[in-house]
């Protein structure tokens, strides 16, 4: 039963960490909005899906890579990758701000109840997915390979591949930048102030609408970056990938303690590893069951998630 886990432990671990970092970035989109609004941004899954198309379009239509073209090298590689990353972040951030504007802002101004906002977010999420379905003719879209997936070195029997290394390092950098932004910048402090006490923050002169827009924007940037890494690793997207990935990332956010940025980080990584280990030991058919049993068990003993209470002060 455990022979696969023992035999392939490091390969699985590296794959799990790479997947985990993608979850971390998407779950930031959920956790930041929750921290400020105390509401789940149901459209975040589709913001992610739209983000993946940013990378596909950059690779395929701007730099004209095809399924048969040679992967990029040197400066060209850096240029294409960074353009694709920025494009995905841009598309996702734009979508996120649009969602905030359409589904949240007006309803909030009118003081409607939370259920109305919840439904309007679900509605816009469905609209975004269906629009992409129509645009892509419901077909899966493959992305050309830009980053050659060469094996850099072998550590403890596991192949260390360029794309996973790039994903882990770059995603970690983006996470740290965002975390520092929330911790140190004036805007970050305003976001934290609103999340701790909205009324007091308003009395202190914080511009609530601006804080909320920036929160969606930052969440969108993180989610868009996740879209870029997803394409770099899997080279595939489709109008309906948001649901599975969104649900996983939302689970990660709850696992770590929703509303808590460090919780999202640890939740995402734990989930990525848990998924690959469970699939390897029990068979992939048990992945979802295992993940949700673990989630329920964690919530039974720690209702606020693994790190919900301990790092309350760093809440986004």
């Amino acid at each position, binding site marked *: 039963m455990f*022979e*696969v886990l023992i*035999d*392939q432990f490091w*390969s*699985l671990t590296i*794959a*799990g960490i790479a*997947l985990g970092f993608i979850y971390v970035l998407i779950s930031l989109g959920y956790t930041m909005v929750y921290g400020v609004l105390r509401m789940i941004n149901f459209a975040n899954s589709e913001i992610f899906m739209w983000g993946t198309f940013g990378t596909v379009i950059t690779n395929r239509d701007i730099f004209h890579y095809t*399924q*048969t073209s040679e992967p990029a090298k040197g400066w060209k590689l850096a240029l294409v990758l960074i353009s694709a990353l920025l494009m995905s972040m841009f598309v996702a951030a734009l979508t996120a701000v649009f969602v905030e504007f359409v589904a949240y802002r007006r309803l909030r101004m009118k003081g409607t109840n939370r259920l109305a906002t919840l439904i309007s977010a679900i509605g816009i999420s469905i609209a975004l997915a269906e629009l992409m379905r129509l645009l892509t*003719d*419901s*077909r*899966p879209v*493959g992305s*050309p*390979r830009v980053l050659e*997936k060469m*094996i850099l070195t072998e550590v403890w029997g596991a*192949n260390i*591949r360029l794309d996973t290394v790039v994903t882990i390092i770059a995603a970690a950098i983006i996470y740290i930048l965002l975390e520092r932004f929330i911790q140190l910048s004036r805007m970050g402090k305003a976001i934290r102030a609103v999340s701790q006490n909205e009324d007091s923050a308003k009395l202190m002169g914080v511009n609530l609408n601006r804080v909320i827009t920036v929160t969606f924007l930052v969440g969108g940037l993180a989610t868009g970056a996740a879209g870029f890494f*997803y394409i770099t690793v*899997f*080279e*595939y997207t*489709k109008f*309906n*990938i948001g*649901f*599975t990935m969104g649900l996983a990332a939302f689970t990660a956010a709850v696992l770590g303690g929703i509303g808590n940025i460090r919780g999202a980080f640890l939740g995402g990584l734990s989930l990525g590893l848990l*998924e*690959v280990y469970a*699939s*390897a030991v029990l*068979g*992939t*058919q048990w*992945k*979802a069951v295992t993940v949700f049993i673990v989630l329920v068990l964690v919530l039974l003993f720690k209702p606020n998630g693994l790190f919900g209470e301990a790092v309350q002060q760093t809440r986004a």
Partner: protein
Amino acid sequence: MNSKIQRSLAVVSAAALVFGVAAATNAQAAVKTYTIAYQGPLSGGEASTGIDEQNAVKYAAKLFMKKNPNIKIKIVSVDDQGDPAVASTVAPGTGSNKSILGVVGPAYSGATIASLPYYKAGGLVMISPSATRVSLTDPASPDFGGPVFHRVVGKDDLQGPALAKYATTGVSSAKVFVFDDQSAYAVPLRGFVEAGLKKVAGATVVGGGDSVPNTTTDFAPTIAKIKTSGATVVIYTGYYSQAAIFIKQLRDSGSTAIFAGGDGVFNQEFPKLAGASAEGSRITGVGGLAGISPKLEADFKKQMGVSSGVYSVESYDAANILLEGIKAGNTTRAKMLKWVKAYKGKSVSGNTIKFDANGDISYGLFAGFTTKNGVLVNTGIIK
């Protein structure tokens, strides 16, 4: 509604009906229109399969109308996206539309099962070109499609052994890892592949296999199992879009094991999505019109503007059975069902089509395809 208005409406609509019918009869003296339906995925991830099949149905109708200028055939497109959930929303309308005399399709087994209750209720005969799940013609199964369901394609209990044989051709003492996508199509097919492997000399099933949800994009755990098992052949029963993601990851992991798949992977989109990683893959599928007669294929291309695609032979055969039935005057659903049940005729492939009591034909032809320079190339019938 006011009774006066109601009465005048009735008069108006009756008048419209009389004059409308009269006008139509005057305009085109003896031309009669009959309707058949094609059901399959015309949008969604599997759309290319459905579009290919529907083109072959349209082609059959075109040839038929040329030969029989006094009959006009209307084809209703029923788009089920290959998805049982969608099928159960579109099938009721098809079942109750009495002008539809017969259905070519559904293309997929899961969608067929979801549609069956409505077609059984409506007595609507179905001839599927590609639904290969065994239980559809098994009277002991709850999925049994009788009396309305028929198919002109070999079942998965014939495909499984063919796939096992083709995947292991030229591999001595093959160690085979088999996994499925958890769908109603893939799980039983995997069983037939594993049973078929027992009859292949020297072949063993290794690693315990896997069962991967069809929304999976990260195949790392499956690949870890393949590596631990030391498999030399990997067989996937599932569909092409997942197969393309998987094969890329398998090759990137450094594995050189032979990759093989069933007719779910049999789609030219597979090498397009997977690129170079798909080279050398072994896929079981059906030969197509081009494999039977280049002349027919050339005419198809001329008439339809595109090449014939997957299941073109089967779709063409299925449409022809219904069309011949219309010509023979079976213009009610009950007569059409009787006609199909008693049908005996020639497939364009040269085989004799005759349905047994459960709706199956007696032959099953599976051809082996391999990916070469980004296209699936026919290597001939698997014997």
